[in-house]
């Protein structure tokens, strides 16, 4: 920053200079309009993103009449939260606890399997050249776009063939395939791992496995954080797979469970005459609390993972 070129502004016509000053003071980032506009947009979206979450939390504390009468963002009572909790736990003799445990089990297994499989694959696709490599990359891209409905039926038949329908493996095994993870790993190493570094280690007699374990993996902590986050949230929220592949209530995860709960009880319409077969006595607070049970673990993961998303594994390729 030794010399600052000042010829440009001076060369401008007086009209342009005046217009430029006017722009800066009003719409420009220093101006009142720019400032106001920026904060108006940001705060408007803060309301959009935050009020529904806040409402959901507060709704667990209110009875059905209170929801109608109190201010939407008022607090009801702690007692009502405890009651809602008890009603959920008692539903079908504690089925919700099974569902929560299943959710954890499916998500953790899927995470472990898919990362141990997709990260080495993405790494080798980035650093090595071998016959079939381009084909694998293209297949990865294509499978990322496959609609689940196209796969779920053949998958159903396939899993049926090996007698895994209605077992936990019907949900876990398919989620071991994580093409998005392989692809992101490939981009990460292709753009941020200097080939000279690997060659230097090869000269020193490292095998490919040692290279991966001692050089590539330690360099990948932001990538690991990001992939773990995306994978965990995807599988925690997995609805389509369990919905189609499981037929046994005991094996459901929380997303399918909550759908089942809402459909089987009066939770969303406590005041109305129930359809036949609907369990009565449940109120909106139960549904809201059920929702929170599913959301809170993911929210914690989101908070931890934010820096990986921003600090990012994505950003390696920006110079390219």
């Amino acid at each position: 920053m030794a010399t600052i070129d000042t010829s440009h502004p001076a060369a401008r016509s007086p009209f342009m200079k005046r217009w430029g000053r006017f722009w800066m003071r009003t719409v420009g980032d220093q101006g009142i309009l720019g400032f106001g506009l920026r904060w108006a947009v940001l705060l408007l979206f803060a309301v959009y993103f935050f009020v529904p979450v806040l409402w959901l939390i507060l709704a667990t504390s209110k009875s059905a009449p209170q929801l109608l009468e109190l201010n939407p963002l008022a607090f009801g009572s702690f007692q009502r939260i405890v009651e809602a909790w008890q009603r959920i736990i008692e539903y079908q003799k504690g089925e919700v606890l099974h569902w929560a445990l299943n959710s954890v089990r499916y998500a953790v297994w899927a995470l472990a399997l898919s990362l141990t499989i997709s990260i080495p694959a993405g790494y080798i696709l980035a650093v090595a050249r071998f016959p079939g490599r381009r084909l694998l990359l293209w297949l990865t891209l294509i499978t990322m776009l496959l609609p689940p409905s196209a796969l779920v039926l053949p998958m159903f038949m396939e899993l049926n063939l090996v007698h895994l329908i209605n077992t936990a493996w019907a949900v876990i095994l398919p989620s071991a395939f994580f093409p998005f993870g392989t692809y992101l790993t490939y981009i990460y190493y292709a753009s941020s791992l200097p080939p000279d570094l690997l060659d230097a280690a090869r000269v020193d007699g490292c095998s490919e496995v040692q290279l991966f374990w001692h050089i590539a993996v330690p360099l990948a902590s932001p990538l690991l954080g990001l992939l773990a986050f995306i994978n965990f949230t995807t599988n925690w929220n997995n609805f389509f797979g369990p919905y189609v592949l499981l037929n046994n209530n005991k094996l459901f995860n929380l997303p399918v469970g909550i759908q089942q709960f809402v459909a089987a009880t009066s939770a969303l319409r406590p005041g109305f005459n129930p359809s036949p077969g609907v369990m009565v006595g449940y109120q909106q607070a139960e549904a809201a609390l059920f929702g929170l049970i599913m959301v809170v673990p993911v929210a914690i993961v989101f908070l931890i993972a934010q820096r990986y998303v921003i600090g990012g594994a994505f950003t390696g390729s920006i110079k390219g």
Partner: protein
Amino acid sequence: MTNQTVSLPNEPLANKKRFPGVSRWRRRLDGYLFVLPYFLVMLAFGIGPGLYALLISFADFTTGLPKYFGAGFSNYLAVFKDFRFVFTIANIGKFLLISVPLGIAMVVILAILLQMRPGPLPTALRTLYFVSGAVTGPVLVLVLIFMLDPSISPFKALLQGMGFKLTNDVIYPGSLPYLFTIMGFFAGAGLWIAIQYGALEAIPTDVMEAATIDGANAWQKVIFIKFPLIRPYIIYQFILIFAGNVQLFVEPQILAGGNNLGVGGNVPAVWSPNQLAYNFAFERGNFGAASALSLILLAIGLGAAYLIIRWTGFFKIEN
């Protein structure tokens, strides 16, 4: 490779190995071992089922058991002739036309506004947008139903002001593309804002300093420097949002699902193409038509992705 000469003391290079220690074919074998597990799961849960779907789409299911190649193109014809095909394609088309451009534009605008002047408040807002993404899937549908109920919603002043009295006044066939857009943005925007924010942060500081010295104001920097530099991420977002939104299933399925929701009657049982495929397969037992429709959807998704990749020259990391 660099042109450095490596001198190995007193060692004859007789066996002409490029690197000592591990032989070349051993390296190649290692390479294949790295991709083998991935290739196997891809075969089992990606390519395999995909090819099987192709086979099924030409199979005849009228007797209950599949007769392969027994149907010719009749499954595809059945899909095209079904009155719900055009309906669901039109629905999803409208949803994509609204949700994709609007979603991308708003994400980029919010990321730029947040990153323009860093501080504790923008950081807090970014976290707020991001963490809301934890509310998704069935819970999000639940929240939306509450938010759109004019009697209990925190936005009830707004809803009642617009003349709505019942949930059914807000949730009706015509409003569904907009509602799914609102839902999708709520669940997904925070993640993409964080990604675009990260991309903006990664722009080298000397580039921004040079622009400041040249007299660019903040908006000019956004339009002429930041925007072109984060373009690859915008394209990436476009492809993934498009691929995700084409597959819309959970939201309309749950919304239509129960007469307990208070909206069941107002939401068609089959609204999106994915639901139609599900309906073909599991409610009518016509697996052939279900597979045919899924493959049509796949072709649309691949076609769109291919066009985007060709137009934009994306994925040029290797060159």
